[in-house]
């Protein structure tokens, strides 16, 4: 959601604790997995470790935090550990080391009952292959989380019906999943997750199995739902466009490690390494970069003339104003003067798609 103001760019972070804090999280698969961390072996690359011990590092020393209301995207190619990471967060897979705190509560030490409570009330997940129950109708699928919680039939039906309406499936309550298209099935998955009214929603590549057009619809649906219900969301994807479109911040993973965390503009403007640079090389920069990344500090400070724009304005949206203005546009971060932007700076991004950061 690049339209909304990203948290790190000027907007003050909401008061209170972060929704999720992950610290030093590891997952190593293999019979002697717990004997790796803390030894020099831990520093080995994934390939070297596998050759030496037979263990595979899926997630390697990952730390990050997510603010309430934020859409936090984890992006990486297949095998980068992103799907494992999201499963570690509710311990669908047990972490090897590290801590996870959700709303100030330590998840890593929670017992089975506690964990179940958490999953029933606070976190809900949407899966790549939907994970619907084929022997239940749409409405019973949506109500499943409430049923597991022990809610009575009439109550849960009412709530489930609201959710079915919310995701635009009204009229299909009595259908079975296999009678619906992929996009509609994922709407059921979405409604099921929303039905338990979670504080945190997790999406594991939810749209990868869908057609491009339907995928775009569903992305817009998520944006709409985020604006309507304002949940904190963690979104896993291997699609950079999707990450840039939805994410307030993006975490890029490779071989289980964090390569970069930043806003879409930061990632595009200042790729952390060749890997990320390669990734973002095809992105139309003008759609992502904000004025912050194209403005220059003039000699002699604020010229005092010309229109003023905020630093988080995306280049594409600001282009017309800059080109129409007689004088260079002045860019401010709040009250602070950052620099000026001239026609040439805009054209360099829009027409040449040249790498301004290099």
């Amino acid at each position, binding site marked *: 959601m690049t339209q909304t103001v990203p948290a790190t760019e000027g907007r003050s972070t909401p008061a209170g604790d972060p929704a999720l804090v992950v610290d030093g999280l590891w997952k190593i698969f293999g019979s002697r997995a717990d004997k790796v961390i803390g030894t020099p072996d831990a520093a080995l690359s*994934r*390939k070297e470790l*596998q050759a030496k011990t037979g263990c595979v590092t899926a997630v390697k020393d990952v730390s990050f935090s997510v603010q309430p209301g934020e859409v936090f995207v984890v992006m990486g*190619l297949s*095998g*980068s550990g992103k799907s494992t990471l999201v499963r570690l967060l*509710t311990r*669908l897979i047990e972490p090897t080391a590290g801590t996870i705190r959700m709303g100030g509560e330590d998840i890593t030490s929670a017992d089975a009952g506690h*964990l*179940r*409570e*958490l*999953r*029933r*009330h606070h*976190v*809900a*997940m949407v*899966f*790549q*292959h*939907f*994970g*619907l*129950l*084929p*022997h239940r109708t749409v409405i019973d699928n949506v109500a*499943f*989380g409430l*049923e*597991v*919680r022990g809610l009575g039939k009439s109550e849960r039906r009412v709530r489930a019906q609201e959710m079915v309406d919310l995701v635009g499936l009204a009229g299909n309550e009595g259908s*079975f999943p296999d009678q619906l298209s992929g996009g509609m099935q994922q709407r059921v*998955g979405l409604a*099921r997750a929303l039905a*338990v009214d979670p504080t945190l929603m997790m999406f594991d590549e939810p749209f990868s199995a869908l057609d491009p057009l339907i995928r775009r619809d569903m992305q817009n649906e998520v944006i709409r739902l985020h604006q309507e219900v304002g949940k904190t969301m963690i979104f896993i994807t*291997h*699609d*950079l*466009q*999707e990450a840039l479109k939805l994410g307030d911040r993006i975490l890029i993973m*490779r*071989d289980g490690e964090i390569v970069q965390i930043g806003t879409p503009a930061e990632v595009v403007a200042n790729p952390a390494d*060749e*890997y990320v640079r*390669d*990734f973002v*090389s*095809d*992105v139309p920069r003008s759609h992502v970069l904000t004025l912050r990344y194209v403005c220059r500090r003039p000699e002699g400070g604020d010229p005092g003339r010309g229109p003023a724009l905020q630093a988080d304005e995306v280049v594409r949206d600001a282009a017309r104003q800059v080109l129409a203005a007689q004088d260079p546009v002045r860019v401010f971060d709040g009250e602070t003067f950052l620099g000026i932007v001239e026609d040439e700076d805009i054209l360099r991004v829009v027409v040449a798609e040249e790498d301004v950061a290099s």
Partner: protein
Amino acid sequence: MSTTVTRPADTSPVQEEQPRVESHRPTHTFARLAVVVAVWVLGWLVLRGHQTLALPGAQLTSFQSWLNDVKNSFDAARETNVFFKVIGGLSDGLNWLFTHLQYLFSTPAPGRPVPEIGWVGVLALLVFTAFALAGVRSAVLVLVGTLAFGYLGYWRESIDTLLITLLAVAICVLIGVPIGIWMARRKGVSASITPLLDAMQTMPSFAYLPPLALIFGIGTASAIVLTVIYAIPPLIRITEHGIRGVSEGAVEASQSLGCTSGQQLRKVQLPMARRTIVVGINQCMMAALSMAIIAAFVSGPGLGVPVTQSLAALDIGGSAVSGGLIVVIAIMLDRTTTAASQRGEILARAGSGTRRMRRIVLVVLAVVTVVAVYVSRLRLSAAQFPAHPALQRPVSSFISSVTDAVVNAIEQVTTAFANIVSYGLINPLQSVLASSPWWLSAAAILALAYVLGGWRPTVTAAVCEAVLLGVGLWNDSMITLTTVLVATIIVVVVSVVLGVTMGRSGRTDTILRPLLDALQTIPPFVYLVPALALFGVGRFTAIVAAVAYGVPIATKLVADGIRGVSPTSVEAAESSGATVWQMITKVQLPMSRAAVVLATNQGLLYVLSMVVIGGLVGGGSLGYFVVAGFSQDQLFGKGLAAGIAITALGIMLDRIARHAAARHGRA
């Protein structure tokens, strides 16, 4: 977008494929096999007839007499020993349960001239159950089949067979389904129970009989236990498979919503595996029914008795009628459970109107059934199946005369066929195997095992050979081995030809598959009847019956394998101009090798269990001793020894085949 992103070479996390280390050149193996066979044949030419360890029919080795003594002391200990008291209690309980079921449905209850529920009541109950579970078509099938029980003169025996089968299946479900679920949820349990199931399924059905009779004595309880042991492995396996097969996504989603383990089982895994579990019950039922005749050997009640009697009297018509009724029961049970497995979903998806309608019909039919049961208790005509029209005699003599005519007409062909196979294949093989000195045959088999499968099956084969020698039935085992090998070779050849044809042609498949399905529901004993009619008493009849029994399953496996070959590979071969023959030999058969191996294995097991049954119609050797062990007390030890020998043969062949397949399967 993701597709256009260039991917750095070093990001691939997938480990590189290991180069295959071991590969055996087939020409090498063939040369070594040829050497072993040549040495064997040379040795046979020089030494034949010496040290063959042949044992005349009535003679016992000391081991076999010792087994007789064991049996006698077991019989004596039945009253005093704690172990036998527990077994005795169990078997008394089973006997009591079954006797009361019989009083209820099939035999005159104490103080009554007829069972508690007369034939009209039983008929109504069966038809109602079939309708409720499986719908109108099954109900009609059950109605016709059940009437056939009575009109063909085997009402009581048929109901007994039905009762014993259903009771055994009920016990299997009570024990097997929980075990299957447990295995699916705990890897350790699965790893420890699977080898046991393997062993149970490798053992030919007949081999269970003597030791069971030793422990449980002769009677209904023994028959039930036997049936349960034979029928439970497929149910356990299929249940485990069904629970395991539930989509991981759904299980994970239910976990992420905070399901307890019980909720996950009740609301997700069981409903989603329901259909597979019903298929398991179907398989279990078919297996249980195939024991119906074998159970007659331990004095189990039911249709097995008339079938074995008329087989022993070479009465083709009589055995066809009673055997035919077993097939009728098989079809009834099979269709009903199959329809029931598909029914749940259809009903769940039907509109509420249809469901209300169905409920009304069910209530009405339930009332009718209750009335029928009530009436059948009051009126003798509704209690005792009408004696007229009695179709048994006319039908059986009709079948006898038709078979006679057919057999006479084609006798020359069948005799010629039997002679060609006998003189061309069975006799040479048998004389090399059985009339070589025992140590030569033993060494040659070990050498073949080593060349084909390496040292592991060789060790197994050595142990099995030691068992054959130990029980004192070496020569008979070699004769039985000949029969098994010949039948298995024929099964594999026929099933590969048929299977490839079916796999390549959809039309052949649609024609043949229902036929094979039907043949598979027929219990093994029934195959003896036509084989006996065509080829008379003798070894060859046993082979024909074994082939007929083994071919359907093997053919289906091969056909499925051929069908499973990736269409892309077929297309690729076609686009490079492969002929039909090249396509079959270079693409389809090699790629479905696993299926062919499995087919060989299954064919072998089926043949093995049938060869024993062949003892009844003059198959001779081990099978004959097992059968004779029940009828003649002094031969019990020899029969038990023969059962052990058959199991040893089975394990030996199975292991060699498996290892050979694993070793050469990927060349």
